[in-house]
């Protein structure tokens, strides 16, 4: 079954949780006991409608304050697809959480309050989803019931958003506008009876129509070795299998490959998934590969096809999204985790900070605070094998680990 991961972004009170609740309700994904709990709590709070946000806000503090603190994951399925929604909050820590949510998503919903139109937050939501190269973006213009389902209002907001689109870096990103009322259920799962002027698909129809090839960005095959399987049993005495996940493309038995960083050449002998052999390892499948020759391969090494080499280097510049309360400053050392490979890195130069709302850059800054985005050059103690993020979402991204606290302090997308 197809799995589609969707990130949602919206400001406080844009009705994000209500939209998700509506999706669950209209796809009949809310079970009776959950629905009962929502009815009970809505009544206690004195609402005269069902507060669907109660279906998603999980932590005590969130329910108390009526806000979403952390990335929450919500699941539902239809006959054709399984859906995972990464619900990210729209307040202070939004950049960190939105970058996180968007990193694993193939589609994103950007919510706009029809009464307010495109606001500064909208710029940020769009900037981040574009920076993360999320392939499919839905601009859901919500609360249409509060603007009398006005087509002019919708068109005006759409025109404003299109001005933003002209500034985006990732121009191939697919963008679709849908007028909705999450509270009343217009154009979420069911077609609106109040907006006959809108001829397009509902939100769910749009996602149902997305095909596998629409969902994933295309790249070249990369196989980072996670683990070497050596059974040391009589039956598999000489077995040396390289376990990992295939990214960006397919690998086939007989493919000529190069092992990085040793640059040794060999051929793929067998591709195993569990106890069966296959001809082709498909994208994003976790397989075990054996090679024709006895070559030295260990965790962190990478198999790539001959003639398809990534950049091998000890220095790179990347867009960094900072996520830690401790500042990133020039000269500081971090662990770069690039896929399953870890190397030590030193901050060589912070070039400029980028306002994540298309309002320009700040040069001459002395460090990065949480939620800052900036161009940073790193020097490494060992070479890594990377692609540019625009060519390869997996092999062009990394995380920064603070060696003092072990926390994931930031993420980066290589130029």
């Amino acid at each position: 079954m197809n799995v589609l991961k969707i990130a949602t972004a919206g400001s406080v009170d844009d009705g994000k949780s209500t939209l998700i609740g509506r999706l669950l309700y209209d796809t009949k994904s809310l079970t009776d006991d959950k629905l009962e709990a929502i009815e009970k709590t809505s009544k206690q709070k004195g609402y005269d409608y069902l507060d669907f946000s109660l279906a998603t806000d999980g932590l005590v503090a969130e329910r108390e304050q009526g806000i979403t603190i952390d990335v929450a994951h919500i699941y539902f399925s239809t006959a054709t697809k399984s859906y995972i929604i990464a619900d990210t909050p729209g307040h202070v820590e939004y950049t960190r959480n939105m970058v996180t949510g968007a990193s694993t998503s193939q589609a994103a919903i950007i919510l706009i309050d029809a009464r307010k139109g495109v606001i500064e937050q909208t710029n940020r939501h769009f900037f981040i989803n574009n920076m993360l190269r999320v392939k499919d973006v839905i601009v859901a213009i919500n609360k249409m019931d509060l603007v009398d389902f006005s087509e002019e209002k919708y068109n005006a907001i759409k025109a404003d958003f299109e001005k933003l689109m002209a500034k985006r870096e990732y121009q191939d990103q697919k963008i679709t506008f849908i007028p909705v009322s999450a509270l009343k259920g217009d154009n979420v799962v069911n077609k609106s009876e109040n907006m006959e002027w809108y001829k397009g698909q509902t939100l769910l129809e749009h996602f149902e129509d997305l095909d596998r090839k629409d969902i994933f960005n295309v790249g070249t095959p990369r196989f980072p070795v996670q683990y070497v399987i050596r059974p040391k049993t009589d039956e598999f005495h000489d077995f040396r299998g390289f376990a990992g996940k295939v990214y960006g493309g397919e690998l086939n038995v007989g493919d000529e490959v190069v092992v990085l960083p040793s640059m040794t050449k060999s051929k793929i002998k067998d591709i195993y998934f569990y106890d069966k052999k296959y001809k082709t390892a498909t994208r994003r499948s976790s397989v075990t590969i054996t090679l024709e020759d006895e070559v030295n391969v260990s965790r962190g090494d990478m198999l790539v096809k001959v003639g398809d080499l990534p950049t091998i280097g000890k220095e790179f510049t990347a867009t960094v999204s900072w996520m830690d309360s401790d500042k990133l400053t020039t000269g500081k050392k971090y662990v770069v985790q690039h896929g399953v490979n870890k190397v030590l890195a030193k901050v060589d130069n912070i070039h400029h900070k980028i306002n994540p709302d298309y309002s320009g850059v700040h040069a001459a800054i002395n460090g990065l605070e949480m939620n800052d985005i900036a161009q940073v050059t790193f020097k490494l103690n060992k070479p890594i094998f990377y692609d540019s993020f625009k060519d390869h979402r997996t092999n062009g991204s990394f995380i920064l680990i603070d060696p003092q606290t072990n926390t994931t302090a930031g993420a980066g997308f290589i130029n």
Partner: protein
Amino acid sequence: MEIAEIETTIKNNLVKVDTNALESEAIYILREVAAQFERPVLLFSGGKDSITLVRLAQKAFWPAKIPFPLMHIDTGHNFPETIAFRDKLVKELGVELIVRNVQDSIDEGKVIEETGKYSSRNMLQTTTLLDAIEEFKFDACIGGARRDEEKARAKERIFSVRDDFGQWDEKKQRPELFDMLNGEIEIGQNVRVFPISNWTELDVWSYIEKEEIEIPSIYFAHKRNIFLRDGLIWSAEDDVVFRAEDEVVEERWVRFRTVGDMSCTAAVLSHADSIKKVVAEIRDSKISERGARIDDKRSEAAMEKRKQQGYF
């Protein structure tokens, strides 16, 4: 393709790898555990989720054996069918099984048995679990929890760091980007790992059906002596569940949707006696899985509180 080549392909069954995103993700996570940690353990309850984990671990490391032991925290109130199943599975796999008993924690005076109508050993498990983690110096504990089970679980990371006291700080969780899992910890800390985080109950059941995985018999419909309390169906076949004199016992066709401790797991009325029928029943179900778990019903935040204290 040449005809000879096609014939070879068919003969050797050499086609495209048949896996889905969730299965490959889980296998990837299990391999990360084996690579990043020195002393991982798989927390095995005998329930369908941990049985699914075991199958995924078999797939991740074949033809080698699963490179970590299984550990069962035995409340002493498990369904006998679960224990028999556990012992058989471990024997077949040839892996090490560690069992630690809540009864021992009670005997040592570390925890006090609850009394009364709703008494359960569910809360007591946490102490036994944390003691066992310390005893064996486990740095990663693999569990079968899923984000769709419960709303506090929906905020859980795949690699979830616990401090020296086994506690979960929901506000200090590490962001998880792309497929990258950060398993760096201090000595004394440990990581709870949830490879099937993104699976739903239906995903698990469909997988069990597709893979023809054996599961304990209590998951299938059977005749059982039961009684009703608070709209839930309780087993009356053993002394574990407290039953008042006015609670009437009757025989009905039931099955269990989750297999926890007997004292906190309610049954559902069902005639689904095969995996196919169970999957169909789950697909049409109007009650969530944990709707039959009395341990979650203690309060709106029951799970969040237990997680903070170091629960599974």
